[in-house]
């Protein structure tokens, strides 16, 4: 499980995260929604330390991540090697340009297990094929990303993230850049993952989808979680005025 406490981050003078607290239980799916610039993507990127944060704590299964107590007080960033190790417990999928264009689909999926986790070639190969079958792309193993549609590329990206056997999957608007007819196949894959009880944090604009797969939805505004609850609570019975405004616009 993940525990986030008091997360703060500023880019120069701009305060993007102003004290975020969030708990994610084992197997829970949390959707992050909000206007552009509310900090939802930054929050996601802080979770796997693609962004450093100024204050606060992130714990995974009760172990603090990313920063250690410094000998003279205060905190100290963990070493690059340790950060890499910690990142392996999380998988992330971006909005686009996920896959490495010069490698086949299978090689893309195998890259992490082979070179970060030192899984043997044979085992990694089996793992890769299995995951690609899982996302419905076993026939495209030897294809190159450029030969795939956007939806197929995203599915491979999900397989690649899963190949690391992560404890949590971070999804940053993974369908936003897709043509509408391709969105469904990606959402199907996410739906199919629900049974695996893997933690997921999904940044999304697709409220309909969030309602369907998320256990809880967090609405962010100006760098803080302003409303948090079940999809029914947040989407149908919003309390915060800015959330009401936001929902009205999105309708």
């Amino acid at each position, binding site marked *: 499980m993940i525990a986030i406490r008091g997360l703060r981050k500023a880019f120069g003078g701009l305060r993007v995260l102003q004290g975020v607290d969030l708990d994610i239980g084992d197997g829970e799916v949390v959707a992050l929604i909000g206007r552009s610039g509310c900090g939802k993507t930054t929050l996601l990127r802080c979770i*796997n330390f*693609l962004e450093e944060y100024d204050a606060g704590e992130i714990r995974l299964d009760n172990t603090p991540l990313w920063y250690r107590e410094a000998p003279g007080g205060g905190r100290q960033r963990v070493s690059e*090697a340790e950060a*890499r*190790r910690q*990142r*392996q417990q*999380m*998988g*992330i999928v*971006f*909005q*686009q*340009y*996920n*896959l*490495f*264009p*010069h*490698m*086949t689909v299978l090689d893309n999926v195998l*890259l*992490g297990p082979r*070179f*970060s*986790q030192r899984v043997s070639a044979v085992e990694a190969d089996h793992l890769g094929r299995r995951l690609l079958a899982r996302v419905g792309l076993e026939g495209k193993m030897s*294809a*190159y*990303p*450029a*030969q795939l549609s*956007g939806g197929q*590329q995203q599915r491979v*990206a999900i397989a*690649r*993230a899963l190949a*690391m056997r992560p404890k949590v999957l971070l999804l940053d608007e993974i369908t936003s*850049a*897709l043509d509408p007819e391709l969105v469904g196949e990606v959402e199907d894959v996410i739906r199919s993952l629900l049974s695996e009880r893997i933690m997921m944090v999904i940044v999304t604009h697709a409220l309909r989808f969030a309602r369907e797969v998320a256990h809880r939805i967090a609405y962010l505004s100006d760098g803080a979680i302003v409303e948090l609850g079940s999809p029914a609570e947040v989407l149908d019975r919003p309390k915060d005025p800015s959330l009401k405004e936001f929902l009205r616009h999105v309708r």
Partner: protein
Amino acid sequence: MIPPGSLALLAQGAAVSLLLAAAAIVGGTVLAIVLAAAAFSRIAAVRALYRVYVYIVRGTPLLVLALLLFYAMPALDLRTGPYIAGTLVLIIYTGALFAEVFRGGVLSIPRPQWESARSLGLPPVAMFRKIVAPLVTRYTLPPYVNVCVMTVKASSVLSIISVWELTLAAREIIERTFAVFTILGLAAAFYFVMCFGIDRLGRRVERRLALRGFAGERA
């Protein structure tokens, strides 16, 4: 029409030019990898050093750099003559140009690909070998070939510091025989073949790399 023996001399000169360029390209590429690494260093002072180096090398005419080195060599007690000075200058020059090409290549790797690699927890060596090097190679092939062609042309400048290569060979023959049009025409033809040849070669390599499936991503 063509003064006797001049064709052979010019051909020899062309071979020297090509060798100089080849040495400069190899040396320059190695230097450029080091420089490009400096360009992305975490230490601000190292990055600044890179920028100063590129600024000086690109802002000063090649001839001036060559003359500086040429006159500096005796002072450094290196009895090696104009060839070494010339090759060194070319390496310094092409090193800067290649470094900028590599730097541009690294910068054109889309951010999510960097972040995917980091998120997969790839150790630095694997990151370089499997991600950075292949991508940078494909992204930078056209400008790299361009610099190679520029290097062949730049070798002609070394004629002024008495490095015997194609241009100097041509000039010597002209001063002997006054067959200006013929000799310079032939010299131009030699350069043309070399430069155009490199360009075509580069395009062939580009096509082969592209065939292996890399055609840019379309999200």
